[in-house]
């Protein structure tokens, strides 16, 4: 068997190339505002695709991403903020001495953010996966709260509710977009391997999966840790994009937004998670015109702040009414091409 490249693989290569061209083009020619939205979209693609791995692919209804994103953001921030900037930031109490010495370059900071989050996920997996279904949601929800509270109540490290500022703005579209591409490829490769099959089997019927010799705890832990890793990296990118972080940023609403994205796109579909991100993160920006005064059929309406959220919610409701399983269901983009080919066979 020589190296045969299937049509599918060519399509993947073409899509990665297209995404790269788009990143280069938009960071050179788009205005600052658009680039900022694209940065947000890229980071949320990383988060949504990895959250989808545990929640959609493995079917473990967990509500913890805000916790892992917060950890990633804080680790990156602590490693990137210069000692001089740290000196004047800690207003509540003096930081621990080791906080002052923490320093690393951007790549190392991001990697450490991911690894730190993944290790914590590994430690959490044993207690968390003792429970299933609704109970799992409650346990993981609690984890998100705990991280936020820890961030507030340990000002020696995190500067408490004031948060960390003056984080160097390292994130740009090359970083966020590039890592988003890597995250999507890595997660698709996991999904299309025995590990991904085991995760899907756990989602469909955990007992039957066990009866096939699948170590379901291992499958869930792998999904959880991979998901946490990319959530940590995403958190790091977010910190280096916003340049300042505080515990309030990572409350439950953050998780909730990701949940909307993956449910809208289709639980279990990586393509769906990407589409969902573009629609939710991009859509809420593009619909800003709805908040402003409008001229309709000769009438002029006054400015209605919040109108876009009303319209956005209506669109969400309609999509969920007519596509119960989300836009993509459990399908991926390639399924549309393969199903069309079946007729020829």
């Amino acid at each position, binding site marked *: 068997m020589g190296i045969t490249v299937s049509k599918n693989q060519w399509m993947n290569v073409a899509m990665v190339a297209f995404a790269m061209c788009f990143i280069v083009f938009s960071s050179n020619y788009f205005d600052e505002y658009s680039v900022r939205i694209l940065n947000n979209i890229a980071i949320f693609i990383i988060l949504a695709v990895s959250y989808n791995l545990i929640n959609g692919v493995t079917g473990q209804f967990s509500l913890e991403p805000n916790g892992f994103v917060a950890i990633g953001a804080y680790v990156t921030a602590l490693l990137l903020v210069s000692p001089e900037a740290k000196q004047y930031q800690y207003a509540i109490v003096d930081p621990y001495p080791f906080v002052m010495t923490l320093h690393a370059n951007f790549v190392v900071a991001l990697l450490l953010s991911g690894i730190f989050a993944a290790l914590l996920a590994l430690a959490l997996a044993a207690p968390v996966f003792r429970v299933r279904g609704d109970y799992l949601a409650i346990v993981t929800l609690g984890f998100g709260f705990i991280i936020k509270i820890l961030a507030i109540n340990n000002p020696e490290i995190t500067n408490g509710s004031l948060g960390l500022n003056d984080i160097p703005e390292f994130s740009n579209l090359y970083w966020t977009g590039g890592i988003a591409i890597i995250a999507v490829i890595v997660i698709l490769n996991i999904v299309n*391997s*025995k590990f991904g*099959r085991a995760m899907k089997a756990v989602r469909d019927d955990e007992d039957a999966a066990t*009866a*096939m010799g699948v170590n379901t705890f291992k499958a869930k832990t*792998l999904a959880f840790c991979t998901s946490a890793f990319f959530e940590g990296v995403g958190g790091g990118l977010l910190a280096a994009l916003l340049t300042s972080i505080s515990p309030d940023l990572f409350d439950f609403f953050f998780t909730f937004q990701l949940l909307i994205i993956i449910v809208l796109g289709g639980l279990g579909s990586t393509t769906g998670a990407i589409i969902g991100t573009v629609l939710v993160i991009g859509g809420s920006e593009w619909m800003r015109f709805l908040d402003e005064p409008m001229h309709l059929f000769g009438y002029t309406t006054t400015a209605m702040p919040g109108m876009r959220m009303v319209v956005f919610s209506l669109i969400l409701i309609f999509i969920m009414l007519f596509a119960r399983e989300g836009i993509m269901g*459990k399908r991926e983009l390639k399924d549309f091409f393969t199903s069309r080919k079946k007729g020829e066979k």
Partner: protein
Amino acid sequence: MILKIDNVTKNFGGVTAIKETSFSVAPKEIFGLIGPNGAGKTTMFNIITGNYEPSSGQVIFRGEPMDGLKPHQIVRKGIARTFQNIRLFSSMSVLDNVLIGFDFQARYGFLESIVRFPRFIKEEKRIKVRSMEILDYFGMASFAHEKAVDLSYGQQRKVEIARALATNPELLLLDEPAAGMNPSETEELGVIIKKARNDFDLTVLLIEHDMKFVNQMCDKVLVLDYGKTIFEGKPHEAIQDPEVIAAYLGDFHND
């Protein structure tokens, strides 16, 4: 003896589901576990597969006690099962369902799958070829890319057995394989199980209510009633045994 059940008792609170039951299954035997509803047959299956821990007694497979092993570890030792109500992975294709059986037999690591090492590609190819062979054996190869839930009941039953065989078992546990099937499907299933027994070197332990099927299939049967063994021997003798008849139809004489 490939499987030895040694004096197994299982209590659920105050209820004794299985009481001091012992039996042995010889290699390549088709062994029937029969009895009225609530006799403890499925409980016995769950003890063998490690889903339940016996309250006392032991399960010995190929001379090795199975104490304390988790269900997925027992599968890896060579005991596979099917379920009473078919439990295929509903979102997955027929091929993917069978591929799950190869989960622990595919030799590549997590990082190898992420960067698509040559070994990943080789192993994936190997298990796909093996899965297609098994599906082909059951005449299901042309359905490989269909969703498992879109198949007929009889076809799903075959996929479930194919999936169990993918784990490369020596002992196959079938929980009511003929349930919900029409007579011609049952007949076909019987032929397949007997053929697979020879071709895959299997020992089969099955639970079944269809006595005609049991009579045709089984070399030996064990009849349970309220967790107690009331008969062990040839199937055609079982249906003439007064105690077995009493268990199934009620004991008219003592009323």
